[in-house]
């Protein structure tokens, strides 16, 4: 012992999920790198095509996911305090915010496709549908993660705090990736 207080290293949930976050971070960084490289080669085309996107809808979607991150954080906090009823309510609230994002995103796609802004319309649109599409897939998996969290919270026999926090970590990743996608596709002009 050297007299210093022992530092207990702690990450919420399974450290394994953080490995997933890191690895997905690498993969998405590679996708973003290809996007930025392509954009640098045809800046005018990308700028012109970006005009099809409605920044207000993008912002609304971002708010919906940020709200979902807030509620899932409250879910974890309530579960830590033993308030499982509140934790379950917040998990359902997270699902609701996620569902708001899902409906809003689907509606945005439908409107854009009706206007002729399709997956193959131009290079920017391909990236737009690809990045938002693969993110959408992560969101769908996120609902499974939230369902696992609710399943854990509902029975005193299960209630693994670690699993609840692992599911919340996954959900935060969805939000984290969306903020980056929003910045790259909607904001960066």
């Amino acid at each position, binding site marked *: 012992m050297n007299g210093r207080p022992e530092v207990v290293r702690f990450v919420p949930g*399974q450290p394994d*999920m953080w*490995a*997933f976050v890191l690895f997905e971070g690498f*993969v998405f960084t*590679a996708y973003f790198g290809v996007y930025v490289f392509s954009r640098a080669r045809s800046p005018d085309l990308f700028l012109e095509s970006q005009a099809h996107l409605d920044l207000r809808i993008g912002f609304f979607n971002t708010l919906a996911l940020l709200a979902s991150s807030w509620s899932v954080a409250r879910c974890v906090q309530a579960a830590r305090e033993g308030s499982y009823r509140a934790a379950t309510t917040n998990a359902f609230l997270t699902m609701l915010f996620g569902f708001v994002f899902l409906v809003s995103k689907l509606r945005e796609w439908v409107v854009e496709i009706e206007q002729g802004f399709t997956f193959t319309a131009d290079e920017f649109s391909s990236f737009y549908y690809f990045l938002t599409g*693969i993110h959408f*897939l992560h969101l769908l998996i996120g609902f499974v993660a939230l369902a696992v969290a609710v399943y854990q919270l509902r029975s005193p026999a299960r209630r693994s705090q670690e699993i609840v926090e692992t599911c919340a970590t996954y959900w935060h990743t969805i939000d984290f990736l969306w903020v980056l996608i929003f910045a790259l596709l909607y904001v960066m002009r």
Partner: protein
Amino acid sequence: MSAAPPDSKRELWIGWWTLVVFYNLYGLLFFVITRTQPPPEPSLDPSEVVQWFHDRHYGLLYGYAIVSIVGGATAIMNATLAYSMRRMSVSRAFAYSYLVIYALATLPGMLIMGVACTVGAMRPDRDPALMSWIYDFAFLSFEGTMGVFLIGSLVWMVAVLLDENGVFPKWFGYLNLCNALTEVVVAPAWIFKSGPFAWNGAIAWWINMGVFVTYTVVFLTLLRRMILREDFGTGPLPELAP
């Protein structure tokens, strides 16, 4: 001759070494001998396709002859992978599902492409339009058919996450999800003939290949560790002594 003890790891090591040799051979055959990987451009015109087959004539014929011979090794490999799931605390259905889905994997994973490329290389004087058809068929069958591997990864993922015997660390379950998601990313290769989403594109091929190679190295390492830890019991796998 004395019989091997019933708990011999010999069979498991045969399976593991088959995996290691096969993947190395696979890389050699596809990247060096046949030169079909990294994949060429989907946008080649018929005369360029004929030239492409001409440049690889003997590599395609001999390379894919070897591929068709060693293809059967996948049975041993898949059995070794399925064994890891049988050693877990989960239902046998996982191992069975994995075996069935991966029994199909040799078709999109090598045999269809091998047959198509061999057909193209066998008669180089064929009509260029037909050669172009064979070329598309070969590469779309190989690069664009990832559903088998997607489901296989998801089966392994769920098994690892539910397992209570600690056969693999949980992060490997999540790595399976990463791998499965990149299999989805290949889908646009059916639509695009150039750019990052085409079958030779930065996103549909290069990034995916990076993830797949990482995934393969990881599961080979973890399988080796599993065999070292194997005690042929039914409970949790013991940890290795430091």
